[in-house]
Structures are given as structure tokens and as C-alpha cells.
């Protein structure tokens, strides 16, 4: 599936929820389901700066497909849920696609407030970092 198809799927999944409570319950569930990362990935250089919670993001290129694979973790479950969505949408795509992706799903599922730089939950920093990996691996 393309990045946009995956985004549409996320929007579809969240469209069932009118209430913020349910949306966050979903994020918490996604956060709890995100596979744990290896201790070797839980290192300073994978930490994303500017977050109130700690967020680790690791990326590597799958040699067979040339796609970027993202893995990550956070000590705050909501942040982990958001990270899980980003991984779901962006992981396993070509570097150029990731670098150029327009992530409209965040606003559409009612998480726009988390994009504000003042929230300091690192969503903005996570997105920036993932796209940066796209750019770097594209070269």
C-alpha cells in the first residue's frame, strides 16, 4: 500500500470515534501493542530531543527492498501510540516517498493539537526525524 492509502486506512479506523476518550483509548491500545525495541536501540543517539517524554527512533534500510524500516519506543503511552501510527504509515517505504510524504492523517484524526511545537510531545520532531531519514537514505 502507498503512504496515502495507509493514511486513509488510519483515518477510516479513527472515524468510528466521536469522543476524544475513545480516540485516546485507541492510541493507548496502539501504544501498548507497539513491539518493544532492543536495548541496543535504546541509546542516546536515537533519542529525539524536545520531548517531555523520552522517544527513541531507529531506522535502517532493508537491503532486499531498499525500503526504510522504522522502529521506536517511548515511555509515555500516548506518545508511543502516535509513534505507532507514524510507523504504520511511513515504515517500509522507499526513502524518497518518506521524504516527500504529506502527512494529512494527523489533522484528520483529531491530533492536530499534538503538531503544535508548544506541545513538546515530540510529534513534530518525530515527523521531522523520519523524513530526515528518508532524505539521508535517498542519497
Amino acid at each position: 500500500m502507498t503512504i496515502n492509502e495507509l493514511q486513509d486506512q488510519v483515518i477510516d479506523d479513527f472515524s468510528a470515534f466521536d469522543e476524544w476518550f475513545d480516540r485516546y483509548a485507541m492510541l493507548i491500545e496502539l501504544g501498548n501493542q507497539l513491539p518493544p525495541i532492543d536495548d541496543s536501540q535504546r541509546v542516546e543517539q536515537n533519542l529525539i530531543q524536545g520531548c517531555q517524554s523520552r522517544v527513541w527512533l531507529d531506522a535502517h534500510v532493508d537491503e532486499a527492498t531498499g525500503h526504510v524500516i522504522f522502529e521506536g519506543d517511548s515511555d509515555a503511552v500516548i506518545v508511543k501510540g502516535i509513534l505507532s501510527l507514524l510507523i504504520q504509515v511511513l515504515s517500509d517505504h522507499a526513502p524518497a516517498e518518506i521524504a516527500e510524504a504529506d502527512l494529512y492523517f494527523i489533522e484528520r484524526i483529531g491530533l492536530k493539537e499534538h503538531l503544535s511545537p508548544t506541545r513538546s510531545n515530540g510529534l513534530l520532531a518525530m515527523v521531522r526525524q523520519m523524513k530526515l531519514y528518508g532524505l539521508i537514505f535517498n542519497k
Partner: protein
Amino acid sequence: MDIQTHIAELRQDFPILESQVYKHPLVYLDNAATTQKPWCVIRKIEEGYRHQNANVHRGVHFLSQMATEAHEEARKTVASFLNAHSPREIIFTRGTTEAINLVAFSYGEAFVKAGDEIVVSEMEHHSNIVPWQMLCQRKGAVLRVIPFNDKGELDLQAFSNLLNDHTKLVAVAHVSNTLGTVNPVAEIIRQAHRAGVPVLVDGAQAVPHRAIDVQALDADFYVFSGHKIYGPTGVGVLYGKENWLEQMPPYQGGGGIFSTVSFEHTTYNELPYKFEAGTPDFIGTTALAEAIRYVEGIGMASIHAYESGLMRYATEQLMQIEGMRIFGQAADKESVISMQVGTIHPYDMGTLLDKLGIALRTGHHCAEPVMRHYGIESTLRASFALYNTYEEVDALVAGIRKVRTLFE
């Protein structure tokens, strides 16, 4: 005034408290970060710009004189509020942070040299650590730290052992912004003075909650922020004993701080102007004075009594929540409760309480050494003001319980 019986009226003084947040009535419990403003302060700012706006200390004209008078009246109000010996000892700054930086620079220039020691405590806000670290770096001095115990009380024995011939200044919070501990500053000052060492007290979290008497405390420097005591942002106060201020060089250069200026030589102006370079926020200072009149009208003793009751109630109620951990259990404590609920990350808890209209602070509260003491990354912090109610405490407790269900 008995706040409990007048709480509904008092809340009407603060227009923002009528706000709805995500369709819930706002429950504002982030008062240690900043307080809301009463109408009288908001109107004072408007009045200032409408009727009294002209640069102070500069003009011969009517408006300038009126503005100057209001600004200097504000200085007298602050002086009397702190029971300072003279308004000359009141320096207006942008806030607590600038006031501390001013002392760190100016006192440091005059009195600190290589090998000297500055003492702070383990529970300080970063703004009462970093300026001293910078001073130490500049001068080759050493920063020493008073530790606190797990209840959040300073170790006075350790403090007394830290004092020696090299100690040049002690800088300590009156009330911890993270733990709520009320530090025994009078005793700290007594001990420091016995060793001939002056003391700066960071009163940012104390001034809104209790009457302060700088002469009774015998504090050498006492600093606070206007916006934490229902006044405007961008105005703060440095109280300094005249004897110290006279010996300190100016902090910043600019208009107003010199009596004569030539390219060869300048002569410093007298106190307090020597430390107030450039145009001061004279609208802000008059609005701060209005805020002080407002709390004095209610009575600092009444505010203290009401908030203490509210804190006790909140602590009791919060402790009944399963998995509740409160950081800071000092015998003398006020205004803030720092907590963690089970394994729920404070950021998650804060985000979800926000959805219920409850405003709290999450994070390390610019006091990372405190977090390190307890081996944690962050806490959820509720902090109270005179307008908070018992019902709001109940809303907080119910909110935390509701959020917990999401994590079960």
C-alpha cells in the same frame, strides 16, 4: 476576609475562570507556573495605556510626570508589601530569573573570585542554578549543593558544614516549585550570617501564598515574579539590602542608570536606577502594585489559611487514589503537589486531564536535580491559588480516576 465564604464572589474577579475547555469548565491548577489576573489588574493595564502612557523619569510634561509618579508609587507599594527598609531597595526586573541573573552578575563582579564558593540547594529551579553556574565558570568559583532528604526537606546539618571561609553567597528557594517544601530560610540566613555570608532567597513560589517580611527574615536579597501573584507577566522584583546594592556595579548599560555620561567617564546614578537600564515596564509595575493591593485587600493571612486547608484536603483525597505517589512530604509544605499515578506517564495523565478541562503541569518543572533525586523523569503537578475550590480538587481526583480506567 474569609475566602471560603466569599469564594464565589472572589472567582468573579477573575474573568478567565469562566472559560470552558473542551466543553468542560476550566479547572486551573497550574498556578505555580502563572496565576490568572483579576479585573482590577486587567483594567489597570488598560487604564495605563489609555490615560497614563509616557516615558518615566525623562519628561517635564504632565503625562510623563503622572507615569513617573505611578511607577514610583508602585515601588513604594512593593517595598511596603515586603516590609523593605526603603523603596531604594526595590529594583524592578523582568521577573525572578532576571533578578537572580542581576545579582549573580553584579554581586559576582564585586565579590566573587577564583576559589570562592556559592551555595545553592538540590531543590532549586534551574533559574536559581544556572546563573550561579555561569558566575562560577566566569570567575573560577565552585558551586556547592545543600542536599534534601526523601521527604523533601533540606539537610541543615549538611548546609552548616558547607559554610566556610570561601563561601561568598547562599541562594535558596523559599518554597520549592516542585516539592512545595517551605524551607527554613530564617534559620538558613541566621547560620549564613554567622559565617558572614549573604543570602539570596528565591521567593517566586512563596510571595503569592504568605506574608513576607524581608527585614524579619534578614534576607540580603529576595526575588519574585509579578505574574505568579496575579500581576502582569514581564515584571519582577529584586529586593536587595541597600548596603549590598550600593557596592554592586550595574548589570546592564543603558539610559537611566548613569547620572553623567561622557566617552571618557560615566558616573552611576543612585539606587534603584543604577540597576534599571532602559525604559522600565512602568505600566506593568503599576499593574503589579494593583495586584499587591488586591491580595492585601483579601489579606495574606487569609490566603495562607485558605490555601493550606485546600492543600490538606487535596493531599488527603489524592492519596486515596490507588498507586498515588506524592513527591515532597515535608512537614511545612504549601501550594504545590507533585505526583505520579501508578505507572502512568505524567505526560499521558496531563494530556488526558486536559481533555477534561483540567490544567496541570507535567514534566521536570525546570528542576531536574529534584527528578534525579527520586530517580524519575517527570511528575504531574497540581498547584493552587486563592481562587481554587474544594470542588475543583474533587474534579481533579475524579479526572485522575477516569483517566486511570483507560490504562487498566
